[in-house]
């Protein structure tokens, strides 16, 4: 099966500090790939480049055979809205909106009517077992509930790829396990690929395969299971 998303020989520096030094990664539809490595190894930068959030200094990122760097900002924004979903450790939910509105936000930005957007958002909140916080604002929920709301928001548009950067980094182990279970189960049900950045082996255990990033270079490893 050909790759849905593929990064080749990516190089990226922030000022004089190199973050990626020839890293690469290939993701097929429906698979969960864990990107592991120590802090500062460049794994988050790799994720951001693959999602089209950052533009690499050199190298190529292809999504469904289209080079991301050739897309205009509007097209990349549309891609994030329709084909990609994001679950980050911090700063992803809009504190002024309720959880329901947060989940419906990508649909609303895409032009879906409010009633329909909120109905679909409600479905996903139900599936992720957080429908009781629908009317609360993110600041009024627990960390685990907030991350499940974020997962619901990442999946509500039916994305082909979910980018998860340390999604359990701020959670206790029990909540972390639950979030990972829900994320990977829901992704597999919808045939969405997941690029999972983590430094925890326990979290990486939910993936189909693992890639280790160290000093800006990536290396495929055998599955842990």
């Amino acid at each position, binding site marked *: 099966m050909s790759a849905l998303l593929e990064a080749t020989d990516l190089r990226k520096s922030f000022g004089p500090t190199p973050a990626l030094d020839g890293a690469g990664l290939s993701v097929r539809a429906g698979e969960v790939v864990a990107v592991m490595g120590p802090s500062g190894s460049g794994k988050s930068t790799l994720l951001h480049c693959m999602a089209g*959030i*950052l533009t690499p200094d050199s190298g190529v990122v292809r999504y469904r055979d289209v080079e991301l760097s050739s897309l205009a900002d509007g097209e990349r924004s549309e*891609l994030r809205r329709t084909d990609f979903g994001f679950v980050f450790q911090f700063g992803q939910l809009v504190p002024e909106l309720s959880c329901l509105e947060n989940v419906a936000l990508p649909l609303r930005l895409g032009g879906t009517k409010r009633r329909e957007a909120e109905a679909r958002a409600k479905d996903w909140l139900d599936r992720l077992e957080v429908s009781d916080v629908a009317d609360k604002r993110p600041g009024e929920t627990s960390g685990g509930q907030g991350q499940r709301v974020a997962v619901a928001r990442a999946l509500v548009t039916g994305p082909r790829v979910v980018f998860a950067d340390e999604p359990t980094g701020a959670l206790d182990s029990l909540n972390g396990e639950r979030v990972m279970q829900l994320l990977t189960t829901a992704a597999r049900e919808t045939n969405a690929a997941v690029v999972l950045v983590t430094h925890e082996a326990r979290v990486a255990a939910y993936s189909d395969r693992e890639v280790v990033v160290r000093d800006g270079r990536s290396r495929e490893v055998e599955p842990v299971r």
Partner: protein
Amino acid sequence: MTSRWVADLVLGVRLAVGGSRTSWARLALTAAGVGLGVVVLLLAASIGPAREAKSERVRAAALDLAAAAGPLRAREVAVSWQGRRIVGVELAATGADGPAPPGVGRLPRPGEVVVSPELLHLIETDDSVRARFPERVIGVIADVGLPRPKSLLFYAGLSDVHTEGATPATGFGTDQPRPTLLPVYRLLMVAAIGALLVPLGIFVLVATRLGATGRDRRLAAIRLVGASRAQVRWIASGETLTGAVLGLFVGVALFFAARPLARFIEVEGVGFFPTDLLPDPLLGAVIAVGVPVVAVVSALVALRTVDIGPLGLVEAVDQPVRRAWWRFALIGAGAVVLVVISVVGSFRRVMADSVTAVALGAGIGLVLAGTGAVLPWLVARVADRLHPEEVAPMLAVRGLRSDSGMPRVLSGVVVVLTGSLTLQILLGVAAQFTAESALDARSEADRWVLGVSEHTPIRSLEEAIALVGGVQRVSEVRTYAPRGEVPVLLVSTDCAEIAARLGVDDCAPGSAYRTSDGPAVPPVGTRLTVGEQTWAVPEHEVVPGKVPGLFVASGSDPVLGAVPPSELVVVGDPDQAFGDSLLAATGRVDRGVELRSTFQAGQVELFTSLRSGVIGGSVLLTLLAVVGLAAAAVDQVWERRRHTAVLTANGVPSRVLASAALWQSAIPTGLGVALAIPVGLGTAWLVVPAERFRVDWAELATTVATAVVAVLVVSLCTLPALRHAIRPDSLRTE
């Protein structure tokens, strides 16, 4: 497509009214800030219509004098009470249907008086005022007949004794144009409008930019889930628009809620009825549309210079460095406009032209806007070069390098300061002109001229004057213009007065004089009819000068002595209080006695009211700027709470952080003052004639010190917020 941006705009509105305590507080702060600005704008937009309405009432109440007979006979009178002038008209109908003045039901008969509410209050509470109005009060003048709520005005029935001396009138209301302002006053007004509106604009901008850092973070989160740059702009516009529109409503509500208070407020003779304060429709529309538009445009301009990315990265897009040229270009363009105006002609002449007046206001506005724009650039440049050893100033300098929030807010204060300094100089020049008008009208400061009518009881009047402390001399002056081939004005008085008027020192009873450059007088011996008698022109001496008339030290001349005096010249103290005492004393004898030496009272009153307006406007704007500064300073502390908490967690003592916060205000304040003084004085120097330019350094120091203290006090007021920010829980971001 249209519904898409509307949806984005609505999302922005939704974000603004998010419902969390922080978002409500931010919205309330913005609405309060914009609202206060709108109140001042509406007040400014109401001044024109208010003056017009007042002027209309004044014109409607003005006596329409008739050349010959008319349905009324009227005598305008003025009474002084504790420095306030009580003006009125004594009226009598010559027929059955004499027209009543505006706001009065019927003409008062002899022994009756109709008074303004304020005068009624004085009559009821003050015996000395009641003594001057022995008539029966039959009514109160309605608002339509009063220039302002606290006017001291009356209409009394004309007693028989004064009927002869009264003037025939057809009624009330005149088509005469309003008196025009002295050029220097117009100059002052235009400059004041320019100087006051620019900081107001900055203040409104600052209010709409409160919470900008949090907003950028929010927008980044929205970018992450797929909002394009264009969508983010619409969302930001919606968010800003909400605060601005809410502020607009708050401002309009505050304005109309506070409007009834106008009836009770009068500052140095300037007051309006609540109904007068209705904004000019065009200006009102400009405010209603302009405030939200300015807010949205400022938000969009701010977003043009940064790129809010999905990771919350806020990157400079087009302006990697703060460009200086356009900031100085604004000042330069304003200065060029002012120079051109002063080169085109004398400022007195050009001020008669409204286009030039607008250009002058625009020139001053450009200079001030440029000053406000230069400050953040200047602060950034200075902060880049400063490398303090101490920790607190070092933190402050680092803060100033990375954040333009405080300098931007201080720009408003600096613009107010610059405008105030310019206006101070202009007020000084206007005061010089006013003082000259006074000297023109009265060659000697200690001579007070009382105009009397032929029916005024002179003996009683002189007795009343004698009781006023400080009187040195009273001279009776009789003037008469007999008909003849050569018109001549006969002036008969004592030698002391002739010496004062003509500068002669050889006057004796019977002496006569005329001036070399004055009008010719009939030849000596020419017989003239004075009153009912014949009088021959005496031998007279020609003295230098151009005072018109044939001056006769009449002594015991029976013919001239029979002419009733037209003036009493009182020599006494030169201060205004003496004049007031004179009017108070003479008013008890005859309300019709007029103090003619009161130098161009109208212009002085105008200057006073202008000065009050300018000072009031400056004070109001300074308060607004300080409120804006306080709001923005607290906002800054709140936005930077995590950085502050990180520093505390790393062991930086709280007193060092407090000291750093003060340094962070003090450095831009010092630079702002250093900028405001030369620009403010320079602008004034360009506007006023060079020979009039004077700097009152004490006044300047007071103004600067007030601004500096206000900024530092506001900075101190942020310390509680800072203490809250350094709590460990500020380290949490989610």
